């Protein structure tokens, strides 16, 4: 503000005029139709329906906009297992093998695979696959991709899936042979995570976003951080050109904004719809909500390293003291269902017939008495941060605390921010904790091997017998033997009760009905590769 302004006389009328002008301009702007259409056309449903559907579609058409609540930090498909990153890159890249929506493994970039012997796997690769810039995909690229994941400088979290690897060789252009030091029964599921990247990408993750060249059905167009990622159909895709011309991923962290954007028709597909919203958003008939069983399970762990949870009787008492029906009915309805095992039913290795612990407070009290706690004890519970929304640990925690108090266990809730909570969790610095995990590969080795092995040091409880079974599960290349081993491991976990399994999660995905062919996935990825408008 300059001095001049204050020296010029301003009349009251001028002031009022200016005020009216500003208000009027604002009003006009507010009333005007959006100057720039946000992402999708403003009334997509109407235009899509009114356009006559040609008998032979003339190439890819229209835009599908997906929303993920998570922020995208990287678009490097092999550095971690974050759902949103896999969702986005799943459109631009293919995997060696494909994990289907309900968790089965089938051919993708590899047409066939087999275990020649327990330590040797052979993958026959699809011929004629090209990256978006024309570079051919071959066995060398596959070798490069795996070696990149293993490079310590690159620091990939997927490295742990490959601890058994010995060597990768390429006898010819379309054959890749993988030797392991110990048998690796998880190989097919690991290959469903392994995403061949363009041979020109280096091993420095910082340089990655500049080189988003994949073999998938969509080509990278632009990435505006924290805002959107745009991709367009690749006409040279080996499985045929996609039907949709453009795929856009948007980041909307706030739940109510996500829902409003969906209802306003600005976006098409939204993850993590809460049950309270379902009735409203489906009322108009333009939006469908899909409920999908996922690979995710949540539980209440008891730290078996600490007293009194080192006593199996105390752990079992807690199993009997919690009324899971109550939680299932009042807390998790719509976001999950009663858990019966440490991994979800869709995960390979799930035990379908473990008898659930019945709600029996009297038996719980008896067990506590036998363990030497006739009047119960005091303890703490962590991990209760989220209320409402997706995990609902906060809400479930209140019910659990109340139910435990009825058998004399006074559990005090402790709130921690994520960084502190993660540290304490991994250092076993807790009595009881709510936690959950998605078996990202759809295999019990990911859901159980990582958590219940003694070497994992995660629950504070472990046993040689469980370790033995989990190692058979990890190493055997005979899928039936693996299944048997996981059954045995789960039976022991059930008996010993170090973990109170609470619920297997659903994913609720809202889809605008103009999008056809979208299928929600158990691994919690959003994939619109095969959709049409």
């Amino acid at each position, binding site marked *: *503000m300059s*001095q001049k302004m*204050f*020296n010029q*006389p*301003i009349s009251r009328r001028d*002031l009022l005029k200016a005020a009216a002008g*500003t208000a009027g301009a*604002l009003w006009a*702007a*507010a009333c005007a*139709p*959006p*100057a*720039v259409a*946000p*992402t999708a056309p*403003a009334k997509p449903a109407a235009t899509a329906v009114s356009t006559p559907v040609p008998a032979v579609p003339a190439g890819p058409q229209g835009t599908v906009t997906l929303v993920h609540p998570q922020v995208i*930090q*990287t678009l*490097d498909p092999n*550095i971690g*297992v974050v759902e949103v990153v896999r969702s986005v890159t799943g459109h631009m890249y293919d995997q060696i093998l494909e994990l289907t929506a309900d968790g089965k493994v089938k051919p993708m970039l590899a047409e066939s695979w087999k275990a020649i012997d327990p330590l040797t796997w052979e993958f026959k690769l699809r011929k004629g696959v090209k990256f978006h810039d024309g570079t051919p995909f071959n066995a060398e690229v596959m070798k490069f991709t795996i070696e990149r994941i293993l490079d310590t400088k690159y*620091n990939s*979290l997927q490295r*742990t899936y490959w601890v058994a690897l010995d060597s990768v060789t390429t006898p010819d252009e379309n054959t890749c042979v993988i030797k392991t030091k110990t048998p690796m029964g998880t190989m097919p599921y690991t290959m469903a995570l392994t995403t061949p990247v363009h041979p020109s990408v280096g091993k*420095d993750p*910082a340089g990655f976003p500049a080189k988003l060249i994949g073999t998938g059905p969509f080509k990278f167009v632009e990435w*505006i*951080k*924290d*805002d*959107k990622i745009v991709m367009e159909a690749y006409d040279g895709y080996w499985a045929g050109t996609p039907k949709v011309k453009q795929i856009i991923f*948007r980041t*909307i*962290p*706030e739940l*109510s*904004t996500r829902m*409003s*954007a969906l*209802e*306003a028709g*600005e976006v098409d597909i939204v993850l993590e719809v809460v049950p309270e919203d379902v009735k409203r958003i489906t009322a108009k008939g333009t939006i469908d909500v899909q409920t999908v069983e996922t690979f995710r399970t949540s539980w209440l762990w008891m730290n078996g390293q600490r007293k009194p949870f080192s006593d199996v009787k105390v752990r079992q008492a807690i199993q009997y003291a919690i009324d899971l029906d109550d939680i299932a009915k009042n807390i998790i309805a719509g976001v999950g269902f009663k858990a019966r095992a440490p991994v979800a039913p869709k995960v390979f290795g799930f035990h379908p017939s473990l008898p659930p612990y019945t709600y029996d407070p009297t038996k719980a009290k008896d067990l506590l008495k036998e363990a030497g706690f006739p009047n119960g004890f005091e303890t703490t519970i962590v991990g209760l941060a989220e209320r409402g929304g997706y995990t609902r640990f906060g809400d479930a925690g209140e019910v659990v605390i109340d139910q435990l108090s009825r058998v004399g266990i006074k559990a005090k809730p402790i709130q921690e*921010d*994520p*960084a*502190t909570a*993660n*540290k304490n*969790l*991994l250092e076993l610095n807790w009595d009881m904790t709510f*936690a959950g*995990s998605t078996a990202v590969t759809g295999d019990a080795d990911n859901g159980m091997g*990582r*958590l219940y092995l003694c*070497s*994992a*040091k*995660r629950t504070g409880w472990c046993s040689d017998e469980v370790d033995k079974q989990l190692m058979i599960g990890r190493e055997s290349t005979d899928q039936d033997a693996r299944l048997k081993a996981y059954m045995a491991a789960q039976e022991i976990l059930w008996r010993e009760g170090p973990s109170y399994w609470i619920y297997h999660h659903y994913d609720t995905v809202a889809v605008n009905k103009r999008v056809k062919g979208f299928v929600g996935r158990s691994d919690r990825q959003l994939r619109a590769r095969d959709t049409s408008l």
Partner: protein
Amino acid sequence: MGVPQLTMIRYLARKFLHAVLVVFGVMTLVFIILRLLPGDPAYVLAGPIATQEEVDVVRKALGIDRPIYIQYAYFLRQIATFDFGRSIYNNNVPALDLILERMPATLELVVPALILSVILAFLIGILSALRVGTWVDGLMAGLALAGQAAPSFWIGPMMIIVFARNLGWLPTFGRGGLANLILPIVTLSLPLFAVTMRMVRSGLLETMDKDYVRTARAKGVTEKLILVRHVLRNMLIPVVTYTGLQLGHLLSGSVIVETVFAWPGVGRLMVESITNRDYTVVQVSVVVFASLFVFINMIVDMLYVVIDPRVELA
């Protein structure tokens, strides 16, 4: 001319030195506070399903396995060379780049919000003061109260529901054209408008009772001239001070507005970085914000001289 110019240069030089010291102090404080906070970025980065080995690998890669004084020495070296380090969480991208690439989005909200709220605050504040005690004044007082009382995390979603979802006039979220700006800017400017408007109003009323105003009236100066020459200039200092400080608060207010409207700005980045213990990004954003704060205060100090000739550069 030589002496006042020299005074000005000396004044500016001293202010600048002050500013540098303040920013350095803030940086050191933030460095210490971040490391005193419980929680460990390695655990966040490795994720909740990581093993101890994975965490150790990450911690070593980040250099946070070293003693804190060594980390501080590295930190000082980084500052001296203007290399502010790389983001722990964003794949080693330089932290300053992360902030600078999001800065335009934040300024796109903050600057218009500041201008809009100040202009409206003056217009309506003056109107209220001139019409003191009437229904106009009452209505505006009510508006100001509502603007101050209603938090932006409530106003924002309400605006979205009314203007975007139900009426369909404006987009619900995201950065894009002019239409995308309206809801977030209005949400952001409302609290600042409310307070500034009340300050303008009470400042005017207070000044209008002063002796020199009465003298001016006695001399026969018109009401218009009294308002502009005598009243407005004399009540400006507190308003300018407050508005300068508010720019800082607008920046922090943008944290909520950016989250509600899915706006890709610095505020959201900062919150995520604090939750993730992304030390470098938090440090750099604090440096940027602190520098902005200090810079604005310098401007405010200099404005005093322009507004009130009695204030001297000392």
